């Protein structure tokens, strides 16, 4: 054990003698882990935003087979038939808690890049606010039905210019006034702009059609009753999903995609980092051949030479991994980023560096260090004792 620690200490202390190569190895491991963590942080952040967006007791009605709101068209009659469905909750006046909604894409200017990006302008009915968890007006007031007034989600305020309270803003050919800001506690709706349904239908010539209807259910289980009703009603051709499922389907795919891009990219970089680690460790062994032979001559075992090399490699890899975690954490954690959301619009979400992805990153780094150190380690263990006479 003493001899093992002594040899490991010698290996690690000799790292500065190969500073250039060691730094290159640390850097390539760091890049690899940073890419992995970056993608995972995006995926996790995105997933968190999406998961926070959907409720179990809100049903979303779309045209059969349309999958996303943008592709869906519902007529006024559909709303009337849904109103009377069993399992739909009512408010204290006996009215169904339900909102027919229609959204259009408008352009906003991103603060960071000063480029245009898509924003959803959603026309909603009064009950819309009761259909989002944690909805609150955080400044100003709600829009007046029938007027060209906007309330703007906090994510939009953060990422886009020109939506400050009281501001008038041109969206397409129409001029609007921002009368309030709202929050839904970080869900996807924070990335939207809301106004009155009738105004959107009017200004964008949609007649009385809508895209989606949201309705509160008496309980999460009531979705089955509603589904049975819709299927039994010949005049309705609708897909009914809970809001949670709806988001999981439409945006969960993006999180999965991010992971599917992030992992292979990291693996490719891992191969590069592995080659670097291998090369560095080979030169470590070669430059210390006489030292290793001397230790063996004194009586140190080949195993200690192997372990010294392997652990030096693991130390380099861990330094790279730790560097990446630090940089990613400082740069990304909690920072908001935008990405394409469910329907061509920007969903604002935060990077989430999770414990799980940090562990994944460290494991990948250690795997690279292990594989990169093992063969040079065997070489170290096999150094000929006769090398003691080398100059």
């Amino acid at each position: 054990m003493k001899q093992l620690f002594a040899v490991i200490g010698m290996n690690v202390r000799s790292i500065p003698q190969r500073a250039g190569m060691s730094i290159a190895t640390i850097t390539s491991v760091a890049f690899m882990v940073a890419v992995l963590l970056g993608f995972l942080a995006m995926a996790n952040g995105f997933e968190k935003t999406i998961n926070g967006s959907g409720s179990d007791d809100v049903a979303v009605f779309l045209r059969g087979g349309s999958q996303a709101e943008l592709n869906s068209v519902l007529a006024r009659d559909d709303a009337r038939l849904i109103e009377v469905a069993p399992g739909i909750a009512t408010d204290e006046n006996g009215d169904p808690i339900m909102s027919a909604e229609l959204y259009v894409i408008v352009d906003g200017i991103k603060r960071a890049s000063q480029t245009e990006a898509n924003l959803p302008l959603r026309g909603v009915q009064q009950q819309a606010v009761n259909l989002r968890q944690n909805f609150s007006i955080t400044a100003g007031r709600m829009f007046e039905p029938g007027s060209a007034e906007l309330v703007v989600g906090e994510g939009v305020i953060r990422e886009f210019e020109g939506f400050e309270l009281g501001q008038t803003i041109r969206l397409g050919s129409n001029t609007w006034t921002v009368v309030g800001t709202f929050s839904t506690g970080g869900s996807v709706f924070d990335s939207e702009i809301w106004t009155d349904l009738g105004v959107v239908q009017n200004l964008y010539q949609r007649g009385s059609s809508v895209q989606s209807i949201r309705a509160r259910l008496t309980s999460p289980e009531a979705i089955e009753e509603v589904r049975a009703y819709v299927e039994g009603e010949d005049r309705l051709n609708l897909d009914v999903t809970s809001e949670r499922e709806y988001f999981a389907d439409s945006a969960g795919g993006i999180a999965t995609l991010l992971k599917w891009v992030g992992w292979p990219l990291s693996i490719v970089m891992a191969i590069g980092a592995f080659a670097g680690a291998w090369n560095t460790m080979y030169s470590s062994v070669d430059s210390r051949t006489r030292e290793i032979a001397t230790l063996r001559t004194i009586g140190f075992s080949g195993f200690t030479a192997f372990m010294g090399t392997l652990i030096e490699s693991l130390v380099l890899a861990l330094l790279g991994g730790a560097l990446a975690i630090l940089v990613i954490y400082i740069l990304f954690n909690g920072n908001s980023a935008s990405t394409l959301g469910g329907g061509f619009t920007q969903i604002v979400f935060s990077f989430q560096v999770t414990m799980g992805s940090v562990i994944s990153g460290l494991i990948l780094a250690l795997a690279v260090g292990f594989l990169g150190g093992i063969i040079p380690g065997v070489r170290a263990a096999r150094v000929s004792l006769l090398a003691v006479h080398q100059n």
Partner: protein
Amino acid sequence: MTDQLPLYQLRDLSKTYTRGKESISIFKGLNMDIQHGDFIAIMGPSGSGKTTLLNQLGGIDSPSSGQVVFEGKRIDNLSQGDLAKWRSRNVGFIFQFYNLMPTLSAAQNVELPLLLTGLSGGERKKRVKTALEIVGIADRAGHKPRQLSGGQQQRVAIARAIVADPKILLADEPTGDLDRATADEILGMLQQLNTELGKTIVMVTHDPSAAKYAKRELHLDKGEFVERGKTS
């Protein structure tokens, strides 16, 4: 009764190197005894096999045939692991280029052989200090090899060779890289280790004036020993 046995008995020792199809015989049928307390200088032309012979004595290379008997027991047929253990208990090596670990201080270098023993940290420190005092370099205990002159580095290397109190010191051209005056200091120290502490020493050297410090001179030439009495 091992004291009555010679420390080493070389019996019919041969070493042949094969390079491809060619095989080169370095020495053939060498016989020699080394007694406790001896100080032998092995001389001979370059390539005569001096280092090769020292390697056999030190158990870092094995003979092609014949036996190396140490205190009555063969060491030429030991396994690698057993040989390593045997070396750590019995042999102190001194090299031409010192072979110190560049990242370790003088004291840490000297401590290395003790890490293979069961000695406590305190006991190791004491022994390291004693060894450094014997070679007269205790004041440089904290220095790295880079901060020491060649002669000082060789002193540290000698301290490392004696710290575990081995039965034999094997030195290959210990002064080959040093100037005359420094070489004489080092050789004087080896002689002192031999006469005062009773260390058995086998030293390979090119240098006739270095050989004079030994009790016996052996000349290795064309694979055979020619013994010469001390000339002086």
